């Protein structure tokens, strides 16, 4: 068997990756689907960072969003509904060298996978979680999701969704040891790029909720928002997400928000009169569970054998 190569940087120098090197199969999302833009942005972030494609693992659950790994020319794990996060954590547990991305949706992450969402944020292992939130179940054809607006008509609630929607931002910010919470819309490519880039650069779990257009089943909600930018609130700060030149002119509502301030982040998230876009919270010093789970990784066989024998000694009579 072969061991790990000690120095990958030698290879990196020889190789240059284009967008095509990160592109997998032809996407099968509907025309006009916001997922297409998110995918293109991920490819760009990978290209800019020149990540080795074989070192990327994109993990997903089930849903429209979760088709993403198939559209990446990297390692991918298209697993079970709601269960992307435990798998992603496991991948990272003994492979600190891998670059882990998670593509999930509002049903996958906030409903069936809600327990894992909360705990993955708390573990804070180094990975980038992108939630493609279209406010509806798309793949199974228009059922109410946790973020479906109240009164919106779906196949499971033909009289209109009966509960107020879940607020994923306040929930995420409420998790102890959370280290990165951002929100963005899929239809602002420069800002989306900066957001995903910042999320990827962050050490720890970065959680990005992306408001995503689903022209097939959730035309109403996101088109309204596109048509009237007054619904959005741009969060600006020197430690926040870089706002490219000219982009801020699109936002009539803007505030300065320091992402180190959790109490303010909570207040911004809780004010549902406007949809905040930008970085709500970042704590670069939060504990990373992968640093614990990777302990002992460098142990050689002879040391392990000595360890087993020491353990057996304590049971020897």
């Amino acid at each position, binding site marked *: 068997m072969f061991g*790990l190569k000690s120095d990958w940087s030698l290879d990196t120098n020889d190789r240059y990756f284009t967008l095509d090197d990160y592109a997998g199969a032809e996407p099968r999302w509907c025309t006009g689907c916001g997922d297409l833009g998110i995918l293109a942005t991920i490819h760009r972030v990978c290209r800019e960072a020149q990540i080795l494609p*074989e070192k990327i*693992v994109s993990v997903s659950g089930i849903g429209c969003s979760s088709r993403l790994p198939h559209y990446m020319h990297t390692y991918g794990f298209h*697993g079970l509904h709601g269960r992307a996060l435990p798998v992603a954590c496991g991948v990272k547990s003994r492979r600190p060298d891998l670059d882990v991305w998670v593509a999930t949706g509002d049903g996958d992450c906030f409903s069936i996978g809600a327990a894992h969402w*909360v705990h993955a944020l708390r573990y804070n292992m180094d990975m980038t979680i992108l939630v493609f939130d279209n406010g509806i179940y798309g793949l199974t054809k228009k059922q109410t999701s946790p973020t479906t607006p109240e009164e919106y008509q779906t196949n499971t609630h033909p009289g209109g969704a009966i509960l107020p929607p879940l607020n994923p931002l306040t929930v995420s910010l409420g998790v102890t040891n959370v280290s990165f919470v951002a929100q963005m819309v899929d239809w602002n490519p420069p800002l989306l790029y900066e957001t995903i880039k910042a999320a990827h650069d962050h050490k720890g779990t970065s959680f990005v909720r992306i408001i995503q257009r689903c022209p097939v089943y959730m035309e109403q909600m996101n088109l309204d928002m596109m048509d009237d930018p007054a619904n959005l609130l741009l969060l600006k700060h020197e430690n926040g997400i870089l706002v490219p030149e000219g982009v801020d002119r699109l936002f009539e509502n803007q505030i300065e928000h320091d992402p180190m301030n959790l109490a303010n982040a909570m207040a911004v998230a809780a004010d549902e009169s406007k949809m905040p876009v930008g970085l709500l919270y970042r704590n670069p010093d939060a504990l990373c569970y992968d640093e614990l789970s*990777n302990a002992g990784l460098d142990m050689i066989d002879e040391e392990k054998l000595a360890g087993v024998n020491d353990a057996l000694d304590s049971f020897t009579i």
Partner: protein
Amino acid sequence: MNDIAVQQVFSDDDELQARDSAESIREHIVEIVSDSGEGAQKCGQTFGIVGARMGNGVWTVEIIPAEIQPPARTPDGASGIRIRLGEELMTNMGNEANLVVAFNEQVLRARIASGAYNSKTIVLLDNMWASDESEDIRTEYSEALAEFTDYGLEVHELPIQEECLKIVPDPRKGKNMFVLGMLSHIYSRDADKALDEITKIFARKSEKIISTNHELFKAGYLFAKENIEHHFEIVGKAQTDKSMVVMSGNQAVGLGVMASGMEIVAMYPITPATSASHYLADDFHRVGGFVHQAEDEIAAIGFAIGASYAGKTACTITSGPGIALKTEMISLAAMAEIPLVIVNVQRGGPSTGLPTKVEQGDLLATLFGAPGDSPKVILAAATISDCFHFVALSRKLAESFRIPVILLTDANLATGVQPFERPDVTCDWFSAPVDQSSWDESVLAYDWDEETGLSARPIPGMRNGEYVLTGLAHNRNAKIAYDTTSNQEGCDMRSRKLAALGRTLNVPEIHGDPEGDLLVVGWGSTLGTIEEATDVARENGHKVSSLHLRFLSPMEPGLEEIFKRFKKVMTIEINYSDDPKAPLITDENRRYAQLAQVLRAHTLVDIDCWSVVSGHPLQPGNISRVIIDHVTEIEGGK
């Protein structure tokens, strides 16, 4: 403890005298029962280890109350330990106890109700309750005592508390060592070895605590010598020059993980599996491993699958309800061909069932509990030594066959303690380092070999090996495939791996003659009991043999041929089956025990079964009666 004092009390002469007057016996079953938290288990474990060190056969099993803090002095609170101590190898918990030490009379009532004693059982009972301040307790005590006498027990009321009070102010802590001293005299134990073990138990505590416990032991020893007429000698004939280890099945699972080279155990607390992870939490760091306590059972297996997918084959340890929750993930591992080790420490079901009690109720659930066809390897440990070795074997099978492997143990093995030969672990037991060489681009991610279904696996990090693993139907290229042939081919190939593994297995060995009237087939922790019961039937002139299966998927080869050499074949199991004599039950609608169902389908032999779900391990006495009943029927029909 001052050594001179020990020597004065336990001089060689004294020991010799003690032996001279002792009645020589082949084996005894001893129980120590108390309220929980009084240290009965520690006392029994130490007694067992001393036995093992003296070359005795030993089987130890804990008596566990179902509640964490059951009310004191209640039958439900009975906590303690049973030790079967014999001249030769002991493989099971045996029948009724010969001698029991009870810290109060109420806990005894629970054990009587569960059939643990008979009219010959000697009871050594702490008499502190006879003079309790509370009149209620005094009445309870005298009433219970009358009950015991009616039952025929030989009760000795002893001032255990009173004696301990001479040494410690609160004998709740310490009485157990006094009792260990008593038992050590009664069974002519090597006192130095016992004192040695006591020192080990309290190694992390102060000198003072060690010396107090030595003193308690000594006092108990002398007390028994002067006040208890019973005095036995069980010569250790199981002595070998090989180095031996003694541990519980769950500790053996934990050590097996360490010896296998696996680095991740992901778990969620569940009785009776969790103590395996407790052990690992203490010692896994010695091999650089990590125990992940996940947020739930599904996350635990998901985490293990993630680690396995990334090249570090991992393990998850659980019990029946956990297996139910993990089912979808196990099916994913089968479908996407991810190596994985799943240990299922079975407990009583259905539903939450009997968390602390034994059952072999998960065979069918593990074999078939998944959507579609999800072939996996299933192994059942029959001994504590198997618990260790089968984990290492499971890891190798999982990787070689790119398949999930389920190792079945149970509550009986989990808490049972037995000495076995110290395993000789070498570096080639460990997994190879994660392969990060370049992948040959011309080889597909599922390049199935037509003959065996086997294929090599690209690991993240391998250049040119990029593929997307999916739980959807996929082709050799790992691409989602809804066409008419791909799913058929995938299922064929995954199933073929079991056939390929089956080809490498040996025909199982028969215990007893290769042909006869009755063949008893078992699996899992009942091995020792079934063989002992079979031996009893054979000694009584019946033509009975037994067979024990360790591989349940794929099934061990040659079974049909073996079965045909017996007039009748039956399984004996700890899971549910309809009693053929029950109302409404006919040959047509009778529901068989789990292995019986599988074997009937597998061999088309008309296999009978006998099974119970009482939550208790099988006892050789009962089982030999069952066997003799069944074989007599056949003999009668001749």
